[in-house]
């Protein structure tokens, strides 16, 4: 399996880079594209469709690509991973989500993927600022099983929180998901998800919530609680809410982070990237500082020891990490790339999906979710 990466700031630039990448006879059939909403995503899709290349893409909140010749972390541009995968070892499909909730959408994806390969893994990207990432994951697991291997993220729109997209072929979807089914008899897929965010302030009680919409915390409108406690202006939300997510305390279990991705100013409610159950005990949370990078480095080291060989690294990193770490995020991403010295590509998300080692797949916020994809050397006959 051969992989190449492209970084461009326009459709034209992309076309030029593509032409130069295939000069050596490289024939890619799959393109993972993470692009700014400011770019002509439709144009990129049409260009790749004309070349019989299957597209698996979404809009982003900043993109990055690391390889031997360039280290790029950018916003308002696009990155693309070109791969020549053996035919019959993958499938890509776009799903509309206008007529169903996130759980139902997940079930539809699970149904489709379960019918592709005996042993399958899923890459999934979802758009829609009301999408409940947790329910999407639960829906897929309902059909494909709790132990399904799955990685992905929620699409971004450069922190504008207006409209996000997923795309494939020549079609864009502003409320839906795109899934890529992978035959696990041909590929190894492993990953980790690490956050480093810590609880700050006293515990609070979610006094009214439905799914991923929180109406009141300690009987106060949720939007007002965020404004008062963080001393921020109305318009600074939801962006500031991504950096200071709610930590849901689960007694005796792993705490879960949920970031604000949308605001209903009329109802004074907050829409989170995943479910926040009514009656949850929560607190604000924050990055403990720049030492969070050191925490990621240790986790990545450990992951490298177990998976030293890979063809490509795909990274779904929360946009809040970018906001909190600023230019120092290059240290976190660069350290990971240097470990394997193979191409690394990804985007800053509004939420991440993945298995932390062999644990069941979950939906996260604030994480550095790294995936290693490798084609198997000896493909079993059955």
């Amino acid at each position: 399996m051969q992989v190449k990466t492209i970084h461009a700031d326009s459709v034209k630039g992309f076309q030029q880079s593509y032409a130069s990448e295939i000069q050596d006879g490289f024939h890619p059939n799959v393109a993972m594209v993470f692009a700014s909403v400011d770019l002509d995503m439709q144009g990129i899709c049409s260009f790749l469709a004309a070349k019989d290349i299957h597209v698996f893409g979404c809009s982003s909140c900043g993109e990055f690509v690391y390889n031997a010749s360039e280290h790029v972390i950018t916003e308002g541009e696009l990155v693309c991973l070109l791969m020549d995968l053996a035919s019959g070892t993958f499938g890509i499909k776009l799903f509309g989500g206008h007529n169903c909730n996130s759980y139902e959408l997940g079930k539809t994806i699970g149904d489709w993927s379960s019918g592709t390969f005996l042993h399958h893994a899923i890459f999934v990207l979802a758009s829609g600022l009301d999408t409940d990432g947790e329910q999407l994951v639960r829906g897929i697991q309902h059909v494909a099983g709790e132990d399904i291997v799955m990685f992905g993220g929620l699409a971004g729109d450069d922190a504008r929180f207006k409209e996000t997209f997923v795309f494939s072929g020549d079609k864009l979807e502003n409320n839906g998901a795109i899934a890529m089914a992978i035959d696990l008899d041909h590929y190894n897929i492993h990953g980790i998800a690490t956050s480093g965010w810590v609880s700050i302030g006293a515990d609070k009680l979610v006094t009214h919530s439905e799914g991923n919409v929180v109406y009141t915390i300690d009987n106060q409108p949720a939007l007002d609680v965020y404004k008062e406690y963080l001393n921020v202006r109305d318009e600074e939300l939801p962006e500031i809410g991504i950096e200071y997510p709610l930590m849901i305390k689960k007694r005796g279990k792993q705490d879960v982070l949920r970031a604000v991705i949308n605001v209903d100013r009329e109802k004074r409610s907050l829409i989170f990237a995943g479910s926040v159950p009514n009656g949850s005990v929560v607190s604000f949370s924050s990055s403990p500082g720049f030492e969070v990078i050191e925490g990621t480095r240790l986790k990545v080291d450990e992951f490298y020891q177990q998976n030293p060989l890979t063809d490509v690294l795909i990274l779904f990193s929360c946009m809040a990490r970018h906001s909190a770490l600023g230019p120092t995020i290059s240290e976190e991403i660069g350290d990971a790339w240097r470990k394997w010295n193979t191409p690394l590509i990804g985007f800053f998300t509004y939420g991440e999906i993945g298995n932390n080692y062999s644990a069941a797949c979950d939906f996260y916020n604030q994480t550095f979710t790294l995936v290693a994809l490798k084609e198997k050397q000896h493909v079993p006959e059955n």
Partner: protein
Amino acid sequence: MSQKIDFLADMIRNFTSGNDFERERELILEELKKINAEQEKLTFKYQRSTKEKNILSSLLTRTTYDLQQVSARLSVRAEELSTLLTTIPAYVFFKDIHLNYLIVNKAFTELVGVPVQEIIGKNATEFFGIHHDPGYYEHEIQVISKGIAFYNIEEHVERNNRKFWVNTNIAPIRNADNEIIGLIGISWDITERKLHEEELRNAKELAEAGTMAKNEFIASVSHEFRTPMNGILGLSEILKNTLLNPEQMDLLKGIITSAENLLVLLNDVLDFSAIEAGKMKLDSQPFMLDRVLEDISLVMKMKAKEKKLSFSIRTPSEVPNALIGDAQRLRQIILNLANNSVKFTEKGVIEIRVSLIEKNTLQAFLKFEVTDTGIGIPVEAMNSLFKVFSRVKQDKLKTISGTGLGLSICRKLTDMMGGEIGVESTFGTGSTFWFTLPFVLSNLSSRKTNEAASSHSERFTGLHVLVAEDNLINLRIVDFQLRKMGFLADLVTNGMEALEKYAAHPYDLIILDIQMPVLDGYQTAKKIREGEKISGGHIPIIALTANAMKGDREQYLEAGMDEYVSKPFTQESLRNAISNLLK
């Protein structure tokens, strides 16, 4: 940073000294770029820190305020809890995971009798020792190890030479991480309650013993009544067959009616005491419904005729005839209801109707209705009609005899047989008493029963029968009835004499009273059967018994007897028993 500046200064020196111009330029630019990137990061960190500082400072201020509020609320709560612990009339204790006391309340220290500081950190065994129930400690270990709460553990405890009962609830205490860090226990002194319970238990036992004694007394008195009753009825029957003038015959009928009424009362009292004592047993056997109804018809037609009432029984053909159930109890219920109807009806009709409610391959559910055109029942009396000793209070009824037990017995019997009983009545117009009963279907054909019925009329001319009975009046009655049937009877007055006679002569039948001096009926039957084990053969034996409490059938059969006849018996019942054996 100073190292980088030194490095840069070196390069500038090299550059000015005219060495490799281009290369030095590139190195300088590269270093400047790095410095720029570092600068950018530092600037970001500074700006970020400033922004974070503002946000965290706001969060800290609000959180501090929140914590102060919580702290104030906790102080109030702590005060409330302290007051509660001091005033609650229970022993409250908190223990750590090693089951050592952490906190105890005032009542607890008073119970133990030592200052609180001497209790904290110590184990219960130091204060209660072996006087604590060992099972109790096991419960505490499970609270800590498994997180299970236990409620209402009752145990006898001893402390400072005082023995008392306590009821204890224990539950785990967990920390924020859901780990068990100890337990809380609350004990109540229930000594007084325990004493009350014991008193109540004693009183109940006493009351039950009293009831038992009462029932036994009634049963034994009834039993004693039966023997003379048998004499009155038997001798009256003999007298009826002698030459009497019409006036004497009227007087005799009066005696017989009174004796029969007395017998009904006696049977009711006996049934009632058997039901009360829980000794009433059902005797489920195959029977023919038409035979039961025929018997009832015979009795009731006569009674109806005396009051010039018309009487009929209607049984549609779909009602199954061969059934399994307690025919005697069924007869008793119908007769009781029909007798009541005759009692309370001055003119008109008494009708018994049987109908099929439901039937499957195994069971049939039947409804029996007894309708009369009598005085009816006032609405206010309907509800209590089936209660014990309940009788409709009305001037007109004062002349009518009864214990008020009949309907209550009927209800108990239908209950026991899995049915229901009820009444519909219009005061002044008449009543319909009804009951429903389930029966198992029998596969006996009715033809067989008819054959058996025909055998009732056969005579036993020339057959030899040996009768053992210590009551001479009864002996005379049996002798009279047997001779009427054609038997040749030898009479003896105890079991020993019976064995001697039996050894000397061959007989076709033996009739044995149960309670006899020297050797009773059971023993006599057993000895006869033991003898037959050697000699072979099997002579039919009938038991004559005044013991009307049911459930003794097995006892007679076990002793080797083949049939039994209850005293007082009629010629008909004796003939039936003999016919069953000598077919």
